[in-house]
């Protein structure tokens, strides 16, 4: 059974550095499997616990092509094909509590970096959302109208908030990568 789920060793080695960074368990699983033979894609959730690239099967055994970048206000952005998908982090959704309403902008809204673009309501508190980048809103997650709890249950995947164009790609460079964001979280909690 395992022989149909194994990557070439080279791909495993390529994948290990990022996987070790984000999940030692993933790395261990891959090391065990690398002793078997050739490659077929396997369900991402089995091998990689790193959001969000794990949701894309073809990225399982390669470094995530679309890594998350984070703001100091706990929004994340993932850029794929020139479009940024925006959501809030696990830390943020835990600090909010159960989200009962998502106030999101209209498609076509132009945002500058750090502009308020909406609010999430939880425990009778409305918390502002801040745009991680400069761009224009191209899509809003309408699933949140009926199911705002997706922001809590699946903050990196189904609980995404908006998609936007990227007018100033250089702004991404100043955002935190996952390691820097984890350090930032620890500094807040201390």
């Amino acid at each position, binding site marked *: 059974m395992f022989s149909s789920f194994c990557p070439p060793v080279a791909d495993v080695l390529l994948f290990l550095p990022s996987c070790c960074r984000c999940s030692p368990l993933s790395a261990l699983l891959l090391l065990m499997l690398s002793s078997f033979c050739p490659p077929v894609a396997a369900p991402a959730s089995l091998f990689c616990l790193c959001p969000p690239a794990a949701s894309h099967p073809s990225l399982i055994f390669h470094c995530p092509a679309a890594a998350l970048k984070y703001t100091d*206000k706990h929004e994340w952005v993932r850029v794929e094909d020139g479009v940024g998908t925006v959501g809030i982090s696990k830390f943020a959704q*835990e*600090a*909010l*509590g159960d989200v009962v*309403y998502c*106030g999101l902008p209209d498609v076509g809204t132009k945002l500058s970096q750090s502009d*308020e673009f909406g*609010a999430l*309501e*939880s*425990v*009778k*508190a*409305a*918390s*502002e959302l801040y745009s991680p980048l400069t761009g224009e809103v191209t899509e809003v997650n309408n699933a949140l109208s009926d199911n705002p709890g997706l922001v809590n249950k699946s903050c990196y995947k189904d609980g995404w908030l908006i998609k936007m164009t990227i007018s100033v790609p250089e702004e991404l460079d100043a955002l935190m990568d996952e390691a820097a964001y984890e350090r930032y979280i620890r500094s*807040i909690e201390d």
Partner: protein
Amino acid sequence: MSPGCTGDQPQSASTSEGWQDHANLRAFRFSKIKMSLGKTPVSVVNLGRVAYRSALQIQQHYIRQHFDSSNPTPNTLLLCEHSPVYTVGIRPVQYPAEEEQRLKDLGADFFRTNRGGLITFHGPGQLVCYPILNLGCFKKSVRWYVCEIEKTVINMCSKFGIKASTSPDTGVWVGNNKICAIGIHCGRYVTSHGLALNCNTDLSWFENIVPCGIVGKGVTSLSRELGRDVTTEEAAPVLLKAFSEQFNCCLVKADNSCEQTQQTLN
């Protein structure tokens, strides 16, 4: 970084309001308070009876102070009472223009706000408290903050001999009746709006709405629970004492020292 505050200063915009000398004196005073008590100072401002619209503008003033790096002690707690007004939160869909007009025709004002929570009523006999706090001075969690507000009011009710509690619906309850409504806004960790505690409020105003959107439950007040008239003036110092205990902060009335304010509350 503000003296007395271990949290981060919110990203600030510079203003020039002539605060410099006053700010330096307050900075010195509050740094002494912090060293002696280890507590975050919070200024108490009693606005008395104030129009809801004015209270919104005043809150914005104190919110801006948090982003003014020259102000060393921006944490503020506003106390007030309003003339009859219905307010709604960021979910406006349930309260269209027709509903707004119906409530205005009853003689109340109507405001759409940026707070959480659904519809509520504010009016004479209700003690309204707007903490304008930087959560960086306490804990950077809105969920924690709302919980602490609920505990503050429960603590305060217990000082009156009233057994209050929380429920799955945010707010403070005595049985199935809400005695205190809560609705908050938070931006860059700075809070606004707050809580509304019924002291000797005319509760019939609540019959025109479904308070907080919760069908099947009622409202109550300190006066109704105790069977005697309890004014906002009587309730205010009790609420302030409970707040200082729950948030482990040092409340300072304008131009008073922390010690003098604490003695007033004891």
